[in-house]
Structures are given as structure tokens and as C-alpha cells.
């Protein structure tokens, strides 16, 4: 036991001293921080987009402009809410955050008609925002910075000279094509800017209105653009096109109501009528069955743990292989084997490298906690609450158990592979099939999470190589007791068996030189009795 610990300790120190270990430990929090930081900044940092609106029909310009204003107001309101949350005086009231203010705000804004948006716009620009700020001031911390209204993201561009608004749509598009392609730039104040989108509403656009018909007319054959034309080189930013579509359709429907003599106000009231759907969980205690955000998170959290197991395992595997192969190719192994038994050597390696893996995970978690404590935003405050839920749940013991089993199971196999190879190159070809196996639980992870007690999940749970991943994934969904106990026994038994067999291969493989053995030879190794 003493030498096992000595080997483990040396193995641990050696790994912890490598650059690769520190890169692994530091890279994950850094990448996490950057993604978090950048994604929250990116929302405000999106460049101003310049659009050109050509409304030859003369009916929809207002709708489009109001849609764009509404898009802007949505951002102002959201930023304002976030500003309030971040600068709130009392820190313990963050509980309310998980009520998802963002969604409520969306709802509120969607309920506004176009006129309402314009009114809101006016209200805010005429000091409404300042008034709201003044109202909020007593509740904000003393050192709160001033609220900065976000810049409008979509700005109407000055049309290039020589653009004839009354020309045919084709001509207009031809004139503007170099601007849309980025070949030419528009003048905006002192700056040259590129044209993001052209919204072209032809004069005869109303003839393209699609109305429900008893018999579907089928797909139109001609490929000429119909209705409102939205020209933009950027296909991924669909906010503007979506807003315009919604807003123009709203305008058309208003017209329809009027034409059919339907009371517009009544329709709006009807549209704003809603019945909430409460999501309830039968597994929870009576009176507390409401599914909260934390519950939903708890259901998805196991996937995070599965990833953690996987990443940590990948890291450990590298150490196991490279350290074993170093000892083999340097022939240090022979000195070691004169001092320790192969079994002690193997156990020492397993323990030492296992400790390295755990150190990495702990380092990640610690940096994660430090990060969310130091960097307080609405999102991190929410993560804190969710973590509190998570830490008090039974997922942690599951994670510890499956982590240990998974590590022992795979590490045993990889150590045996390492003992058979003299170079990393040889090892990689032997590792390939096992890597394929390891990818399976990751690929099926989201299916299992969606249907934790379905047949796929159940079948995979009973395959020991997948058990730790699949059962971890199912842990939050109260899998049947039969599955839990049965797979656990099977997993433990097969882990012990794999370690025992790996020990045999290790003992014989470790002094081998030359090519890795063929399957038949390997089979002989497993069967050969060595005392």
C-alpha cells in the first residue's frame, strides 16, 4: 500500500507539473469567462445596421418604421430591466429574477399595437425614461452608474444620389445591388457605411396578398419575388425581416377587419386574452408541484455532469497512456518492477492520475464559483440560485459514484492498452475503437435526457461501458429502482472484472517489446495464469 501511494504521489506531482495540466485547468474557466463576457457584451455591441425603405405602395412605410422602433424599444426596456437588476440595492431579493422578466417584457411589448409603440416611443423620448430612472433611484445602490440608452440598431440610410424611387423594382434593385454586396458604400453623416438591407414594397403589393382559399392553389411556379421584397446579404440576422413581416401582416389584417366591418378593438382584446398553462410535476410534494425554472434546470443538469465526466476522462486517458508509454519506452518499467509488483504499479497509476482528474474538476468548479461570486450580473445571480438547488439535490452523490466507476472502468482498459504499446502512435490505433464507444453516450445524451426512462435509455444503462454516462443522465428523472440497483451491481462487477483482466494484460504487456499483440495473442494473455 505504501509503494502504491508513493507511485500515485509521484504520478500526481509529475502530471500537475506539466504545462498541459495547467493549460487544461486554466483554459476552461478562461474560455467560459470569455464566452460569458463576450456574449453579454455582444448583444449591445452589434454594429448599427443601415436599411433603405422604398415603399412604392405608400401604405406600409409607417408599419415598417414602427416595427423597427418596436425592436429598439424592446432593447431599451430589456437593458433598463437588466440595469435595475444589476444595480439593485438589496442583494437578497434576486430571487425574483427567475420569474423571467425578459419574457414578460416581450409579452407586454407584443400586446402593444403600432400606435401604442409610437406612444411608448414618445413617452420614453420625452422624459419617460428619466422619470422611470428617478422612480427607481431610491432602490439603486449609491455607486450606480447612469443608465445609457442603447443605440438604435437599425437606422434608415440616406439613399444614394440618383436613386429613382419611382423606377421599377428591378431597376431599384439593380441600382442598389453594389451597395448591398458591399462593393459600394453609402454616406451617413461623415462616415461611409454599408447597406444592410433594402426593404422594397412594390406599388402592386396588395395583389400578392394571400388569403385562405377552400382549395389550396398549390405551389406557385414562377420564381419572381412576391409581396414585400427584403434584400440582404446577411442571412443569419433575421430580426429585421421578422419584425417587418409581423408588422406588415398586422397592418394588412387591420385593413381586412375594417373591410369586413369587424371591430378592431374587440379583435385586439380577444387576441390579448390568454389562459396560463401551469406546468406541474407529479413527483413533487403536494402544494409545491409547480415546475420552477430551477426544476427544469435540475432536469437538464445531469447532461452537464455527463460532459464533466467525459472531459475529465479524456484528460486522464491522455495521462494514463503517455505516462505508461514513457515508462515503457524508457525502460524505467524494469527498475520499477524490481521494486514493486505490477499490481501496485497499476493501482498507483490509477490513483495518481485519478487524483489529477479530480484536481482539474475541483479547480474548474472553484474558478467557476469564484467567477460567479465576483462577476455579478443577472445571469450569474440566476446560476447561483440554480447551483444552490443543485448542490442540495441528490445528483452530487450520483455524480461522484459514476465518476469513480467510469474512471476505473476506462482507465483499466486504457492502462492495459498503454502497457501493450511502445509508442503513442501504436496506442492511438488501439484506442480508436474505444474512442468510438465513448462517443456513443455523448451523441445519445440529449435523446436520453428528453426521454430518461425510454427504451434507448434503459437499454444503454445495462451496457456497462455506457452505464455511468447514461445513468448519470437519467439520475434526475427517478429511474426505476430495478434499473438503479441492477445497473449499479453490473457496473461495479464489470469494473472489478476489467481491472482484474487489465492487471493481467498489464503484467505481461509491460515488459513486451515490439509490435502490439494481435487479438489472438491478447486472448492468450487474458487466459494465461500468472501468479
Amino acid at each position, binding site marked *: 500500500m505504501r*509503494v502504491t501511494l*508513493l507511485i500515485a504521489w509521484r504520478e500526481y506531482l509529475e502530471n500537475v507539473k*506539466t504545462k498541459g495540466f495547467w493549460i487544461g485547468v486554466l483554459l476552461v474557466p478562461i474560455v467560459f469567462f470569455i464566452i460569458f463576457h463576450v456574449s453579454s457584451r455582444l448583444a449591445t455591441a452589434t454594429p448599427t445596421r443601415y436599411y433603405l425603405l422604398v415603399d412604392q405602395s405608400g401604405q406600409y412605410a409607417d408599419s415598417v418604421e414602427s416595427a423597427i422602433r418596436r425592436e429598439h424599444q424592446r432593447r431599451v426596456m430589456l437593458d433598463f430591466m437588466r440595469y435595475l437588476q444589476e444595480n439593485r440595492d438589496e442583494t437578497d431579493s434576486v430571487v425574483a429574477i427567475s420569474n423571467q422578466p425578459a419574457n414578460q417584457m416581450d409579452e407586454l411589448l407584443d400586446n402593444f399595437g403600432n400606435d401604442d409603440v409610437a406612444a411608448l416611443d414618445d413617452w420614453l423620448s420625452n422624459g419617460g425614461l428619466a422619470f422611470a430612472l428617478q422612480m427607481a433611484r431610491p432602490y439603486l445602490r449609491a455607486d450606480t452608474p447612469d443608465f445609457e440608452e442603447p443605440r438604435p440598431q437599425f437606422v434608415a440610410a440616406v439613399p444614394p444620389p440618383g436613386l429613382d424611387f419611382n423606377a421599377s423594382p428591378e431597376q431599384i434593385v439593380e441600382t442598389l445591388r453594389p451597395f448591398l454586396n458591399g462593393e459600394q458604400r453609402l454616406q451617413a453623416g461623415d462616415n461611409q457605411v454599408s447597406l444592410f438591407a433594402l426593404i422594397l414594397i412594390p406599388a402592386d403589393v396588395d395583389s400578392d396578398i394571400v388569403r385562405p382559399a377552400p382549395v389550396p392553389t398549390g405551389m406557385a411556379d414562377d420564381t419572381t419575388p412576391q409581396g414585400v421584397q427584403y434584400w440582404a446579404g446577411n442571412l443569419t440576422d433575421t430580426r429585421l425581416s421578422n419584425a417587418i413581416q409581423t408588422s406588415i401582416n398586422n397592418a394588412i389584417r387591420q385593413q381586412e377587419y375594417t373591410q369586413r366591418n369587424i371591430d378592431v378593438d374587440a379583435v385586439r382584446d380577444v387576441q390579448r386574452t390568454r389562459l396560463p398553462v401551469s406546468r406541474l410535476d407529479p413527483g413533487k410534494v403536494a402544494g409545491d408541484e409547480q415546475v420552477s425554472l430551477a426544476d427544469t434546470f435540475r432536469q437538464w443538469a445531469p447532461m452537464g455532469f455527463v460532459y464533466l465526466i467525459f472531459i475529465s476522462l479524456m484528460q486522464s486517458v491522455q495521462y494514463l497512456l503517455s505516462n505508461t508509454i514513457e515508462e515503457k519506452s524508457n525502460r524505467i518499467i524494469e527498475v520499477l518492477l*524490481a521494486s514493486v509488483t505490477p499490481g501496485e504499479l497499476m493501482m498507483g497509476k490509477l490513483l495518481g492520475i485519478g487524483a489529477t482528474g479530480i484536481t482539474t474538476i475541483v479547480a474548474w468548479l472553484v474558478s467557476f464559483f469564484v467567477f460567479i461570486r465576483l462577476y455579478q450580473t443577472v445571469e450569474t445571480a440566476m446560476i447561483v440560485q440554480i447551483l444552490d438547488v443543485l448542490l442540495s439535490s441528490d445528483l452530487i452523490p450520483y455524480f461522484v459514484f459514476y465518476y469513480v466507476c467510469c474512471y476505473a472502468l476506462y482507465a483499466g482498459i486504457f492502462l492495459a492498452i498503454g502497457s501493450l504499446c511502445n509508442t503513442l502512435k501504436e496506442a492511438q490505433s488501439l484506442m480508436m475503437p474505444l474512442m468510438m464507444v465513448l462517443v456513443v453516450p455523448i451523441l445519445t445524451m440529449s435523446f436520453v435526457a428528453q426521454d430518461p426512462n425510454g427504451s434507448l435509455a434503459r437499454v444503454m444503462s445495462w451496457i456497462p461501458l455506457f452505464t455511468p454516462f447514461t445513468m448519470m443522465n437519467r439520475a434526475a428523472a427517478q429511474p426505476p429502482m430495478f434499473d438503479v440497483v441492477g445497473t449499479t451491481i453490473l457496473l461495479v462487477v464489470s469494473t472489478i472484472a476489467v481491472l482484474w483482466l487489465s492487471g493481467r494484460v498489464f503484467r505481461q504487456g509491460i*515488459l513486451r517489446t515490439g509490435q502490439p499483440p494481435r487479438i489472438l495473442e491478447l486472448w492468450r494473455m487474458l487466459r494465461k495464469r*500468472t501468479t
Partner: protein
Amino acid sequence: MSSAVLSLTNVSKRYGDFTAVNRINLSIPKGSVYGFLGPNGAGKTTTIRMILDIIRPDEGQIEVLGCTSAMQVRNRIGYLPEEKGLYKKMKVWAIISYFATLKGMHRKDAKLRAFELLEQYGLKDFANATVDSLSKGMGQKVQVLSSIAHNPELVILDEPFSGLDPVNQEVLEQLIRDLKNNGQTVIFSTHIMQHAERLCERLLLITQGSKVFDGTVDEARAIIPRRVILECLDDVSALAGLDGVLSVCELPVSSEGRIPGTRQWELYVKEQTNPQMILQHCFHNSISLSRFDFTQTSLHDVFVHLVGQEAREHNFR
């Protein structure tokens, strides 16, 4: 033998059809320096690995320090394998101390001992260097030190001299003598006969897995008759009739350092023969000698005599 630290009885090891070691018997007394000699592939390393219980013999018994397995007494044995290797990223003192702790030494004592050894054998300045900054020879010295740091009763060194320059070979010879003076038993394998000649009390000579000789250096020398080289202008084949001379034969002509026109003769004589007698005979018969050379049989000659033919065949197979 009660004082034997190591005894092998009919030990054999086979790999498939190939017999690596064939029924070797051996007994090594305590406190001796014992040489394992043999050509490449003779089975020296396999024998050593079996002694250390790294591999198991297919038959026969091995007794090490009174136990049937070296594993039971592993802390009392030091081992330097044939192929040398160390952890590249470890510091020199740390690696010596690590191997010593694996052999049961206390961590602090092991560290002190590592520095003591490094100072004693001229590596003090490298104590804090990492192994990959050392030259091959220095690395090998470090490895030798790490195999003896725990003061083992039995030290087994597999080809300890290979790769060392002459100065360090002398340092290593001194180290082996120090161990012997300390009462430790040393077994080393080599195919450089001079080391064996200078250091060993007893030798084991194996070839193709079988023992061909086991005994003292003097006994080894006695295997081949003593030799006298004569150089003269005459035919001296008549010397074969002398009592104590076993054979006389003329050596092929080689110009090296020879007076032109002389012939060179090789005489094998009995162990107790006085070579003075041949000199006298030549004097009486007016044979004028330009060279009279009577040398001790070297271990090299014994080695070539015993395994030469086989080793050559083996190498060119």
C-alpha cells in the same frame, strides 16, 4: 550453502520453441563480486530478470537472500537494468530519492542519501538539474546511484559499463569495489572482459542459454593452455618434443612489427611448465630469437575460446 545470497537450481526459461535459459545452476557467496559473462543474446538478462522475479522461470528454483521470491526481499536488492531510462522531467536528486523510497527508505533519509551519493561520485553540481539535461553517461551514473541508494545487500547491475567513457568506467569500478568493501554482494553482467578480470572473484559464462563455465578467474584462465610466442629465422617445430609443450604451430605471416624474414610460432604449454625451460633449449640449440613472449592467458582468450565460434555463428545467422 548457508552463506549464499543467491542460488539457482536447474532454472530454465522458454519463449515458445526458443530456450532462453537452459537448466542453469548457480550459487553466489555473500560479499563477492560476481560476473555474468556471455555473448549478446546468451540469456544473461533473462537470468537476471528471473532472479528479480520480474519474469518467472518455467522450471527450477531460485533462492534470493533466503527467500523464494525476490519480491519478498525487494527492499534488500538493488537493480540496474540493461536498457537505461529515467523520468526525463524529474530532478536528479528527486529520482534517486524516489527509487530509494520505493525501496522502503524514509523520504528525508532518501533525500540526504541522494545528495551524499551525488557528492561522492562527482555529480553534486547536477543535483537540481532535470534528467533530460544530462548526457547519456551522466544519466547512467545517476541510474546506478539510484539502484544502490538504499544500501541493498545484493546489487545486480546489467551491463553497467556500456556507454560510459573510460574515466567513468573507472569511477564505476571504484563504486563496485566500494560496495564490496561495504560487505555488499555485487552481480554484474558484461561482455567487456577487462572489467570482469579486474573486479570479479567468480564468473559465470553462459552462451545460448547454457552455462559453460562457473568458477574463479584463475580457474577460467586455466581452461586454455598457456601460450608462448616465439619469433626467429628457424623452424622450431621440433620444440613440440619437449616435455611440457603441448603443441607448436607457425602463425600466418603478418608484417606488423616483425623483422623481415622471421617466422612466428605459437607454443601451447602445460599449466605448470616453466617457460624458462624453452628459452634454455633455444639457447642450447643456437636458435636466435628475436622475440620471446610468455603472457598470462587473458579472460578475453577464454571467452573467445569458449563461446567464440557460437557467438560468431549467432551473429551472422
